[in-house]
C-alpha cells in the first residue's frame, strides 16, 4: 500500500503524496465533484473478461476509474466500481445504454447510478 511505501521518507515526494492522500478520501469531495461520480455494479455468473469489457467501455468514453472491488461467491460474481464522469465524452444515459449492452453480451447485469444515492443512504 502507499502508506507503507511512504513510511520513514521525511519530506520526500512520497511523504507529500502520503499527506495529500491522508487529507482526501478517494471518493468524496465537494458536492460538485460528488455529482460527477458514478457507481457501476456488475452482478452475474463469473467468466473471463467481465472487468476488461466493462472498464473498456469506461476508458473509451474517458471515464476515470477511482476505485474498484470485486467479490466472488461460488459462481456468483459481483463487482463495484466508482468512476468520475467529469470528462466523459457522452451523456450519462448513453453511457448507461452502452454499459447495459455490454452486460447483455456477457450475460451479466450491469447497473450504473450516481454515487449520491449511496452517500445519502449510507453516509448520513
Amino acid at each position, binding site marked *: 500500500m502507499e502508506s507503507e511505501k511512504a513510511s520513514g521518507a521525511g519530506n520526500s515526494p512520497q511523504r507529500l503524496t502520503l499527506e495529500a492522500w491522508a487529507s482526501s478520501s478517494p471518493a468524496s469531495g465537494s458536492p460538485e465533484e460528488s455529482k460527477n461520480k458514478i457507481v457501476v455494479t456488475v452482478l452475474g455468473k463469473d467468466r473471463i473478461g467481465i472487468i476488461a469489457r466493462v472498464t473498456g467501455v469506461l476508458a473509451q468514453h474517458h471515464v476515470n476509474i477511482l*476505485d474498484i472491488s470485486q467479490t466472488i461467491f461460488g459462481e456468483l460474481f459481483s463487482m463495484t466500481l466508482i468512476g468520475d464522469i467529469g470528462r466523459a465524452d457522452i451523456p450519462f444515459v448513453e453511457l448507461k445504454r452502452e454499459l447495459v449492452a455490454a452486460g447483455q453480451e456477457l450475460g451479466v447485469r450491469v447497473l450504473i447510478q450516481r454515487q449520491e*444515492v449511496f452517500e445519502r443512504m449510507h453516509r448520513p
Partner: protein
Amino acid sequence: MPFTTQEILETIRMVEVEHFDIRTVTLGISLRECATPDAKALSANVYEKVVRIASRLVPVAQEVQDEFGIPIINQRISVTPVALVVEPAVVAAGSSAAAQEILVEVARALDRAAAEVGVNFIGGFSALVDKGCTPADWALIESLPAALASTNRLCASVNAASTRAGLNMDVIARLGTIIQQIARATADRGGSGCARFVVFANMPGDNPFMAGAVHGLGEPEIALNVGISGPGVVLEAIRRLGKNRPLQEVAETIKRTAFKITRAGELVGREVAARLGVPFGILDLSLAPTPEVGDSVAEILEAIGVDVVGAPGTTAALALLNDAVKKGGAMASTSVGGLSGAFIPVTEDAGMVAGVARGALGLEKLEAMTSVCSVGLDMIPLPGDTPAHTLVGILADELSIGVINHKTTAVRVIPVPGKKAGERVDFGGLLGGGPILPVSAFGCNVLAQRGGRIPAPLQSLRN
C-alpha cells in the same frame, strides 16, 4: 472504497427485489390567478397554466430515474382546490345548473391538461367545507358524478371535517347520495369513479398521494412534493430480523429502514425539483402498497406477528409500524410532510385482500386500524345497494376518529353497482381488486337526516 460492497448491494436489493420506489413526484400548482367570471376563459386559463408549468415534469422524472437508479413510478399534479378558483364564475352563472356545467367544463380542462403533459392523475377538484359551504362549494359537490364520469385522470376530494371546526354533517349527509351517484355514473367501470374521490377530516394541503392530493391554502405558487414508498423493504428487513426478537428491535429495524429510504427519496425529489427549476415542497414517506405480492402493508403486520391481518393484535402492530415509520422519516429529513405513515387500502394490497377473503378483516376492524395509522377507510368495495344513510354513517364515524384524535382520516369507498357482499370486483392496475365487504344491516337514517354540525371537540380534559 467509500462504500462496502454490502452497502451497495443493499441499495440495489431494495430497488430490484423489494420494490423500493418513489411512488410519485407530484407538482403542486396554484390556480388562483385563473379565477374569472367568464366561464370559457376560466377553463382556458386552467388548461393553459397546468400545461405550461408541468410540461417538463414527465421527461425530467424519467431522466432522474435513469441516472439515480431509483424508479419514479408516477408523475402527478395537484392544484388549488377548484371550488376556490371557480367562485367568480359560479356567482356569474346565476343558476345552480349553469354553475355545475362550469364545474364539469373545468374538470374536463384539467383532465385534458393531465393527458397533454402525460401524468396519470391530477388532484384538486376539491372543496374545503369543514365548517360551511359557499355556492361554489355546493356546485362542486353536486357536479362530482358528472365530473368524474366524464374524466379519467381527475381526482376529487372534500374536506368535510376538522378538529377546529367539527363535522359538517350537512355536507356529509349529502355525500352519501353523491357517492352512490358517482358509482352509478361510472357503473361501466365497476363504479371506479369512487376510487377517484376521497372525503377527508383534517386534510393536508401538501399530500402528494392520490386521490387526495391538493395544492392547499398556504402553499407557494408551485412546489414539488414527493411520495416515497417501500413496504417491501420494511417487510424484508423484519423478516431478516427473525421471529424471536423483542418488539423494540422490530421498531428500531423499521425506523432504520425508513431513514434510509427517506434519505434516498429526498435526494431524488430535490434533483427533480432542481432540474424543473421549482421549489422543493415536502417528502411524504408513506408505506403505500401495490397489488404486487411482497409490496404489502398487511404482510408487514403478519411479519410482526399476527397470523393474518385483522386478527387481534393487528391494531397494535400497525400502531408500532406507523409510529416507527414517522420517527425514521422525521430523523432523515426536515422536509417530511403530507401523510407520512402506513396506508391500508384494501383492494390495492394483496395481503389485505387475502385477509378479507379469509374472513379475518372486515369494515369494523379496518375502522379501528385507522385510528392508529395514516389515512382511513381506503379503497373498500361495498355492496352496490348500500343505503345512502349507511354511507353517511360510515363517513361520519371515520371522520370523527380524525377530528377527535387531531389527525387526518379519510374515506374512499366504492359501492359497486350490481354487486353483493362476497362477490369480486376488479378495477385494474394500481387500484387492484378484491371481494366486496359486507356492511351492517342496521342503519342511521335519523342521524343522517338531522344535518347540521357536530361541534369541534374540547381541547382540554384529554383522557
